[in-house]
């Protein structure tokens, strides 16, 4: 059922990776993404894969959770691979009609897919090991210098926090309404697309009504507690850079140096 879905995808834990400051993690993810695009030698790819393995090992995530993260992209990956396979000039292995399947194409396709997969996997490791709240807090901190040029960093982060907070609520609400309508003989699994869309009305209308009511109540509750935006607001949990973070940054720097070194040598 719907209630079996995990959104936010955070798997609580207390590993080294879990304990690294979310700002540091976000920063590292940014550099890793840049690195994946810039550093494209085979040895670099090997290092990236080793890093993924090490991260999975130390954060005690189950490897099949990463496969699950890749699942929605399966078709895109396959498509990318096939396009490259047939559109790259080189040594032909198979000739189909006007297309040539080439060794160079297979290689290029494989590495591009690997690159895409690495992007997803690294981002998933971040969301798997960082609670959504910690992530939005980190985003707010990172965006806070932009406040001076009028970017409402706090408001944006608050909106994200609230949205994330209500995802499980909305899912359970949807689940409940679906069950209620199914008990009244509604069937969501058969019929053509048009019929299925029509059947969503009995779910969406109650869902919208309860969402508006909830938003109203939340606004009232926030006002009752004198919420007035981010100015002068302090935090209950201050984020501090700790030894763990220095350690993480050090390891990260070593990995980057290795990656750049490999690229420079050109293996």
């Amino acid at each position: 059922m719907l209630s079996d879905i995990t959104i936010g995808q955070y798997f609580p834990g207390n590993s080294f990776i879990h304990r690294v400051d979310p700002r540091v993690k976000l920063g590292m993810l940014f550099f890793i993404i840049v690195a994946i695009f810039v550093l494209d030698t085979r040895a670099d790819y090997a290092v990236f894969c080793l890093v993924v393995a090490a991260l999975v090992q130390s954060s005690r995530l189950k490897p099949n959770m990463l496969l699950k993260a890749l699942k929605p992209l399966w078709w895109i990956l396959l498509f990318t691979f096939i396009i490259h396979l047939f559109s790259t000039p080189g040594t032909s292995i198979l000739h189909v009609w006007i297309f040539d399947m080439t060794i160079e194409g297979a290689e290029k396709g494989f590495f591009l897919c690997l690159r895409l997969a690495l992007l997803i996997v690294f981002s998933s490791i971040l969301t798997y090991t960082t609670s959504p709240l910690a992530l939005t807090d980190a985003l707010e901190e990172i965006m806070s210098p932009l406040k001076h040029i009028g970017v409402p960093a706090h408001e944006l982060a608050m909106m994200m926090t609230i949205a994330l907070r209500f995802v499980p609520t909305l899912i359970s609400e949807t689940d409940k309404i679906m069950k209620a309508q199914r008990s009244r003989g509604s069937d969501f699994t058969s019929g053509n697309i048009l019929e299925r869309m029509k059947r969503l009305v009995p779910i969406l209308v109650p869902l919208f009504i309860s969402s508006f009511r909830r938003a109203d109540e939340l606004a009232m509750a926030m006002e009752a507690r004198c919420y007035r935006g981010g100015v002068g607001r302090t935090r209950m949990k201050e984020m501090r850079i700790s030894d763990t973070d220095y350690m993480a940054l050090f390891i990260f720097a070593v990995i980057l140096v290795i990656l750049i070194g490999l690229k420079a040598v050109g293996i």
Partner: protein
Amino acid sequence: MMSIEIKELAYTYMRGTPFERKALEGVSLDIPKGSYVALAGHTGSGKSTLIQHMNGLLSPDKGSVVVDGTDINKKSDAARKMRRKVGMVFQYPENQLFEETVAFDIAFGPLNLGLDEAAATKRVKKAMELVQLDYDKYKERSPFQLSGGQKRRAAIAGVLAMQPDYLVLDEPAAGLDPQGKEDMMQMVKSLHKGGTTIVLVSHDMDDIARFADKLVVMDGGRIIFDGKPMELFSDREKTEHAGLRLPKLTSLLLSVREAGFDVDVTMTDMDKAVEMIAGMIRERKCRNAK
């Protein structure tokens, strides 16, 4: 067999993830046709999970649910039809209303059953009569303009229009004012009198003592009591052990008995009980005067 037969039911939420949680384990239960069964237990004891198995909203990991002789988790037309014989009124059912008018909303179920408009309208009329909403007055109204209690009755009518043989209600009186609550309980009682089998999830022991002829208590995904309500309530210790509170009247009668009067603690009618106690006191006074 005309009943809902639940055998060795087991169910686990979010199987195979770190969030796995056992909700039901080895639950066996019989709900005979024509009975009024109350289901009690703490929040998280598995009541909601159990009732969702009764019309196939959840399918069990282990065990079976057999309604009137048909296993409802089989993939057959007969099973699908039988699931519809069990009506389900969730908590705050007014949250399921969506149509433009009350009549359309109530007709949603019958139309899903494949009835034509005339037959559906007939059912709408009957269902509204059962929940005491005047058809001519309310049929054209938007369900969102009704009062809280009326909305709930309209939503329940939406379930009754399916003409279920079994009706499962999850705290139908939650959030209603005392009068609304009493009206709701009387309505359920009259449905029961009309031949519908009732399964009532309730935290109100007074209601359970007054109306139910069978009480099932759950704790930690298991059934810890299954019998006549008074079998449990007439024993203060057993009731507390089951994590329940005594009905007010039973508590009073037990105290009276502990004070040395020979009263029938299984009474559920407040007026009769008061009369009986008053009579005994008068009798004792007379005796003392002599």
